[in-house]
């Protein structure tokens, strides 16, 4: 009997640890990888996850061959490509196997960034015990929400319409994913999706209202939370002004140009006052004799840029420093019309504008090649992939001014940027200011679109503005701004990328 009791005791003793702690014990993983519960158990884990989001956004910008240039290839003023892939892109052969694969990869990598965002957002709420500082919590949350809006905004425009109003309002657009997981998110209409987008931006702005970049110095935060300087380099994070600028960009696309201009004006003045950005010193730029050491992406004006290790190398295939067999993208001499000469003074903008042959375009036997991403590994300006520039704020203000028939104001905004690009002549020197208002409007809009091109060439954003102008304004404006372009951009709906086949077979509708 004693023995039987012993057996029972041993059995019970054994079952106790099994019953209590085995669930935890069974959650084992390999050490070269980190589980979510490990990562999000510390503040630095949240920093790493947020960095991961920015890295994933960088990946999405370099997916396809290079999405940055992929988007430009379909509308940019580039010479006919010799490489078959780029040739297919210029012909908008999105269904061709190799291009289609890249379009799928662009989709996937963008949604991968979104998955990272949603996962981090969910964990941020779950782990309030880890991120205890209110400000830090708000900053992380604000940046994540803004990133979600930014990535979706590009996705909607790449795989759908630019104009979300009118007939398009009730059409279905790409899924706006707010939950991390393996189950698909339902598609919503443009109108519904717009609400989600605007809400994310508004929430982000609210979260970021105490962003250190706004100059409110929080001593406790600086000494305890920001000891390692994580929250110091705000240019490469979606800071308050970057999000406000994003809001201005979105509003401009939505046609809310008054609101857009207000926000743009606020960003232009406040972000400069706060020291986040400053307009370029063009002379200073040219002073540096070593091309590879110059700030060719104009990083002093980046409201938000991604830190992209190896950007120069990544872009080499596209905009090579050394020309190899013509397998690169370049501008023909005809396309230099976008960097116009000044007929009155005889001076040539072409040779003044730092964005032209003065710095960023290099003349080769075939034409001009783009050098803006070229930087030495020693350069303090390397690895900066611009996402939102200060100049865009001036263009928004200028466009809003034109739409209000304030041409002098518009010229002022454009000239501010032009002067800081080294162009001495005002935009008005090649616009006949005595024309009719209607013609002036056309001229100014053409000038604005050309400014966008000069400023954003090769950055993957120009296509959206081009499509917006084409949808909204006269064909003539776009045609003028599109001189030297080898690709047909009409109808602009031809520039919409098809959804990945696997989404279509699972019942997604690309409502075109």
């Amino acid at each position, binding site marked *: 009997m004693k*023995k*039987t009791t012993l*057996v029972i005791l*041993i*059995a019970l003793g*054994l*079952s106790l640890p*099994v019953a209590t702690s*085995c669930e935890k*014990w*069974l*959650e*084992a*993983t*390999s*050490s*070269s*990888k*980190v*589980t*979510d*519960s490990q*990562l999000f158990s510390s503040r630095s*884990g949240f920093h*790493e*996850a947020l*960095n*991961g989001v920015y*890295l*994933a956004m*960088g990946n999405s910008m370099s997916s396809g061959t290079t999405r940055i240039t992929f988007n430009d290839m379909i509308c940019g003023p580039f010479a006919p490509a010799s490489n078959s892939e780029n040739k297919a892109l210029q012909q908008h052969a999105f269904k061709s*196997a190799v291009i289609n694969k890249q379009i*799928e990869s662009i*989709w*996937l990598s963008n*949604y*991968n*960034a979104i*998955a*990272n965002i949603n*996962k981090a957002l969910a964990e941020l709420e779950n782990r309030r015990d880890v991120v205890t500082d209110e400000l830090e919590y708000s900053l992380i949350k604000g940046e994540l929400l803004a990133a979600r809006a930014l990535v979706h905004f590009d996705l909607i425009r790449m795989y759908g319409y630019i104009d979300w109003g009118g007939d398009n309002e009730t059409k279905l657009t790409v*899924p706006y*994913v707010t939950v*991390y*997981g*393996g*189950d*698909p*998110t339902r598609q919503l209409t443009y109108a519904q999706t717009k609400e989600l987008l605007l809400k994310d931006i508004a929430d982000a702005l609210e979260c970021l209202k105490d962003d250190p970049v706004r100059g409110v110095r929080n001593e406790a935060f600086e000494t305890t939370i920001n000891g390692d300087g994580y929250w110091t380099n705000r240019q*490469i*994070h979606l800071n308050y002004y970057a999000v406000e600028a994003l809001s201005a960009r979105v509003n401009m696309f939505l046609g809310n140009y008054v609101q857009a201009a207000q926000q743009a004006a606020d960003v232009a003045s406040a972000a400069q006052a706060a020291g986040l950005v400053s307009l370029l010193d063009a002379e200073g730029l040219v002073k540096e004799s070593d091309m590879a050491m110059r700030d060719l992406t104009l990083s002093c004006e980046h409201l938000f840029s991604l*830190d992209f*290790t*190896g950007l120069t190398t990544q872009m080499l295939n596209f905009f090579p420093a050394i020309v190899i067999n013509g397998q690169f993208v370049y501008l023909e001499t005809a396309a230099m019309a976008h960097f116009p000469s000044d007929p009155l003074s005889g001076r040539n903008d072409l040779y003044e504008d730092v964005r032209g042959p003065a710095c960023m375009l290099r003349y080769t036997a075939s034409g001009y090649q783009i050098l803006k991403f070229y930087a030495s590994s020693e350069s303090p300006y390397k690895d900066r992939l611009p996402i939102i520039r200060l100049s865009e704020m001036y263009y928004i203000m200028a466009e809003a001014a034109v739409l209000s028939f304030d041409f002098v104001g518009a010229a002022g905004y454009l000239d501010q940027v032009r002067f800081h690009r080294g162009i001495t002549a005002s935009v008005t020197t090649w616009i006949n200011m005595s024309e009719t208002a209607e013609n002036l409007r056309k001229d100014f809009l053409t000038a604005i679109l050309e400014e966008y091109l000069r400023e954003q060439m090769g950055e993957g954003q120009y296509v959206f503005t081009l499509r917006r102008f084409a949808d909204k304004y006269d064909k003539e404006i776009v045609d003028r701004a599109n001189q030297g372009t080898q690709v047909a951009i009409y109808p602009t709906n031809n520039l919409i990328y098809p959804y*990945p086949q*696997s*989404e279509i*077979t*699972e019942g*997604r509708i690309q409502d075109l």
Partner: protein
Amino acid sequence: MLAVFFAYSLHAQTAGGLQIQTKVVGKVVDEAGVPIPGVFVYPRGNTQAGTATLEDGSFQINVKSKDVVLEFSAIGYVVRDVKAADANRVVLKEDHQTIDEAVVTGIFTRKKESFTGAVQTITSEELKRVGNVNVIESLKNIDPSLLILENLEAGSNPNVMRSMQLRGASTLAMETTGLKSNFVTEANTPLFILDGFETSLEKITDMDMNRVQSITILKDASAKAIYGSKGANGVIVIETKALTGDKTLVTYTGSITATMPDLTSYNLCNAYEKLIVEQREGLLYTGGGLSSEWAAIGANLYYERMKRALEGESTYWLSKPLRTGIGHKHTLSVELGSKDLKALLDFSYDDVQGAMKGSKRDVISSDMNVSYRANNWIFRNIISISSMNASDSPWGSFDEYANANPYYYPYDESGNVKKVLFGGSIQDIYIGGVAYNPMWNAQVGTSLTSGYLEFTDNFYAEYHLADFMKIVGRIGVDAKKTQFDEFYPAEHTMYALYSVVNDPERFVNRGMYQLTTGNYLNYSGDVNVQYNRNIGGIHDIFATAQYNISETRFDEVTNTTKGFPNSYMNNYVQAKDYYNELRPKGDDGINRSLGALLTGGYSYKNRYMADATVKASGASVFGVQKHWGIFWSFGVAWNLHNESFMEGTKEWLRQFKLRASIGSSGNQNYSTNVTMPVYKYNNSRYYGGFAGATLDNMENPWLQWEEKMDYNVGIDFRTKRINAVIDAYIADTRNLVFDRNILPSTGFRTMVDNMGKVRNKGIEASLSYTLFQKGASYLGVFGKVAVNDNRILEISAALDEYNRQKAAIAQENNSPVPVVMYYNGMPINSVWAVQSLGINSANGREVFLDRNGDMTTEWNALDLKNFGSKDPLYNGNFGINGEVANFGFNLVMTFYGGGYLYNITLVNKVENILPTKNVDRRVFEDRWHTPGQNAPFRSISIDMVDEQSWNTGMTLPTSRFVQKNNVMEIASASVYYEFPLELIQKLKMNRLRATLYIDDLYTFSSIHIERGTQYPYARSASLSLTATF
């Protein structure tokens, strides 16, 4: 053995009665005089009154009188009836037939007669009779339900582990991306249990066969449900030799093995034939249109080669890297001990020399098995240390020799091996290309080695609470360190293109060293309580409760370096630099599991039996939401031969048992980390000076084990001469683990998920018949066959997307290798090809039948059709064995068939081959070259203009190359001689036996295929000697 003892000792306790009893004391020994423990001893016809021998072979039994006939039976020995009066020393003869009395499951031991599961028990003798290579190679010749798959690439490479499946493939092959660790088990591999602890296939392959006492294959649910989530692929339980008597015994076994390459499957052109082919293909010797001068040089070269070929010069390249490998192995085992403390010490050295020069594998191992008993305690400890060192042949892959042109000569004038066989300048490409001598690489210090050091310690403690109940605790540690070294010096032909002039950068970085090191550590432990009681001679009750826990960790790191200017700088640390900025690569994992088991059996008068098992398994590889699974089994059996109405058959019928079982088990041979979100750090990309982590996978917290439901019915039938076992089964694997495609808008392409169902159904039958038996002489025949049919049932719609992508990839990749696709109602391993209508005799092009039934010359992946299963429908073996006047022999033939093979080696040797390489003779004989010719192989020259466009002329999977795969092999033949007692006693020996084995003597195949493309197949002959002192 101990368990057997305790299982049966209780009978002695209950057999008392009022009758007057006579006590019989005796000892049971084998022919060598070694005591046999665990021999079941009972008065004939009254098994309830039985007992079992102790570890020193001794027994005590009470019988009614000295005239009672006692029956002695034990695993691996012939049953013997002895009068109680003569039972003081009983000699049992080792059995030539599979007469096995106990089932060893690795957790407990049961008497086979009352067990309801489908098991196959293999004795040490049986194992050794059918081969002398290793345990796996012998198993292949014994039980056809264990299908050891052919590896047509690796052939008889001693360093490549065999793939196997028990009762058919039950899981889908997942595509692994990235580096797969050497510690990850293949999905269909059965679970190996060595002395109660889980072990690896490699350990079993390398273990000394002489240590094996018995092997038990657990096939159905009733037998394997005790292993819960690990048991679905079947379980192979190996017990090593147990300790026997208190007499010191020394056994030496030595053998010498010759491994000879088998090239019968090769059929290559000689120099003359090859040159004719080249002329016909019209590609070479033209000078590539370079200039008329080059055309002339080309033409001259051709005539010169032809002249030499006609003079009979032709190099037989195949023989160059080959040899007859002479290997040897030695085992010395010493048994020591007294009544309470016993030890078994083993030392073995096994040196395997492969058929390719420099290919070898040697294993040194030492084991110590110590047991101590005191009062109610028994302690046992088995320590095993083994060290393996292997080399792959520095001569390279065998196909390099098969590809070498016979008109090249490998030696220069002074008889040294040449580096360049032909060419060197760019223009030479237009007259036949540059050819390097593969033999060169073996001369310059290329080295491919691997090795491991493994230590295992298994500790057992038993406490006997009562004669019907005991507690067993076991703790095991298995630690293993592995290393793989791959070294290619600068002189290797892979760098021959680079010179300091044309590519200084690559030139200085010639030479490569890849070093992979790994660590593996497993701890496991369990405690079980065993209850085994007979009540009133009528009811037998058996029960076991067990808790087990285990943890396995492994990690593996690969570093690659470059820049080794010469062959004596052959140390990893002498590298110039890391290889092209490659960071260290690696894999690691940790698997944990827990389990609780309750199993019980009941037998009524040894007539009606039932077994039931419930096992709860928890494992870390499965989803957070699904860590635990419950597995169960239920089995019944009926021993007809013990029924009273069968009384009349007692004279001849030994066993007639009907069995049936049902139950579940799981499979968890999967990588970890798919059930929870895992972040990875990108070390080459920081963000603003800070590290960043991104999600690596879409997790599936609901992932669970593949669950296999086994249904089995069987018959065991045995008379004095006939032994027959028939089993029929259906095994449904549900929740197949598979990479499911998910919508990319989730951020990921795939998610590991459970889906669908696979059914294996089959019949296994084995029959042996003793043709003749008289005294020690006998002659027996046997035959076994296993038929298995494999089908996918209820596959999820998500696989349509997988199949669609596979077809798209097939279309895009232009690959001659058939893709794998999964469809309902089709076997897992289907062969997919496009229906061919043959070769158009007018132009030599292939004509296909498309999905609409129209003729076309375009190959389209959408037209792919299933042409049967790669797995054989049936396989089996048959043979004959016997013994007469101290001579014994054994012959085993194995066969399989009913499967289909896509003859990729033929395609690649006949159609998808550059004429710059040597080709199969069928190119010479059977390929289309003249309009109007009816040829089985298409012309290729019409499809290509220059070397680059060869790809467009590739033969893609076509039904022309789907062939029925029926094979019969003379697998093993052996002859032995047992030296007569008088002689060995003079030599102060207990036993001396010599055996000659010949393995894989000949293969008859319905397919003419180059078997062993990267390493040839081999036959082996071996002479073995066993002496006991």
